[in-house]
């Protein structure tokens, strides 16, 4: 009996070590890559959104989140209010989670009140949140607060448009400028 145990012990040990090594290998090789915006582009987008609002005499507060809803940038424009940070963050988060602008989401909800949205206390379905896309992938969202909902929406859109311009310069040159962007840029 003792002999049999001795014979089995080594192979069993090797088997478990091999399993453990294999499991670790598997864990190491199975990774998922999530894209997020480089900081300097986030700054550009934030400043573009605040600038678009300032051109309409609106003092905006901006939050940019990544695709998971983590805050990556907070900006209080000159004359803007700190108290709007929470509203801006929640709009950005809602937009990143739902992969669409909060303005669109509000319209769909109005058209279909039975539509289910996640029971997330952070959700805020008021215009002002716009997703940031790299190709078809949502890599984050911009949330703007401080003005009227429609103003906030157009400022956030201006920030997203600025990013599109920086990320895909060729495409942006061919598409028609949006009516809500800054006049100085649209006349060029």
């Amino acid at each position, binding site marked *: 009996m003792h002999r049999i145990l001795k014979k089995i012990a080594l192979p069993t040990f090797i088997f478990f070590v091999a399993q453990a090594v294999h499991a670790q290998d598997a864990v190491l090789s199975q990774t998922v890559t999530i894209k997020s915006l*480089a*900081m*300097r582009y*986030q*700054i550009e987008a934030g*400043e573009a959104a*605040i600038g678009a609002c300032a051109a309409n005499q609106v003092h905006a507060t901006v939050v940019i989140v990544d695709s998971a809803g*983590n*805050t*990556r*940038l*907070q*900006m*209080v*424009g*000159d004359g803007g209010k*700190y108290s709007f*940070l929470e509203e801006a963050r929640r709009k950005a988060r809602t937009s990143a989670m739902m992969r669409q602008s909060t303005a669109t989401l509000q319209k769909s909800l109005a058209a279909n009140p039975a539509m289910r949205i996640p029971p997330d206390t952070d959700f805020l379905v008021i215009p002002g949140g716009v997703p940031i896309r790299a190709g078809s992938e949502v890599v984050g969202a911009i949330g703007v607060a401080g003005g009227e909902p429609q103003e906030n929406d157009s400022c956030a859109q201006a920030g997203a448009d600025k990013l599109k311009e920086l990320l895909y310069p060729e495409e942006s040159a061919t598409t028609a400028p949006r009516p809500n962007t800054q006049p100085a840029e649209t006349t060029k």
Partner: protein
Amino acid sequence: MRNHLGQLALLAAIVPAFYAQAQDKLINQKVLPLHVEVEAAQTAIEACAAKHVAVHAYVVDANDNVKLLLVGDGAHYETVSGARRKAHTAVMLGRPTIELQKALAANPGLQFPADPMSLFLGGAVPIRAGGEVIGALSVGGGAPEQDAECAQAGLDKIQPYLQ
């Protein structure tokens, strides 16, 4: 002529008094414009990135309101609250937190206000304009000494605007 002088003297007495009264009722507070804050925070983050340390940076005003938060490429968000607390400490006590950390290490019995928000680790520097604290720049994500160096680099960059 003499009458005029008298009137002038009266005016000279009243006008400053009037302005002094207006000043008593309204308080002017200096605030940094956003683009200067962005320059400071970005410089600090890039100074750390040059040393392969990924950090995030906060800029708060004199009342400890967050004006700006930037998360550097590859920096963690989990530690953001630490930088937030360092900013609070620097703006409250008006001294770089690395100095406070060293002072505490040298003299562990040192008494500071019992404030749960305080964090006596290097990384935050007060921003002063003409001796007055108008805010703080706080860096987090690296070792306290590294954070402190990067925050100082950010502050040095905007120093010319703070005369």
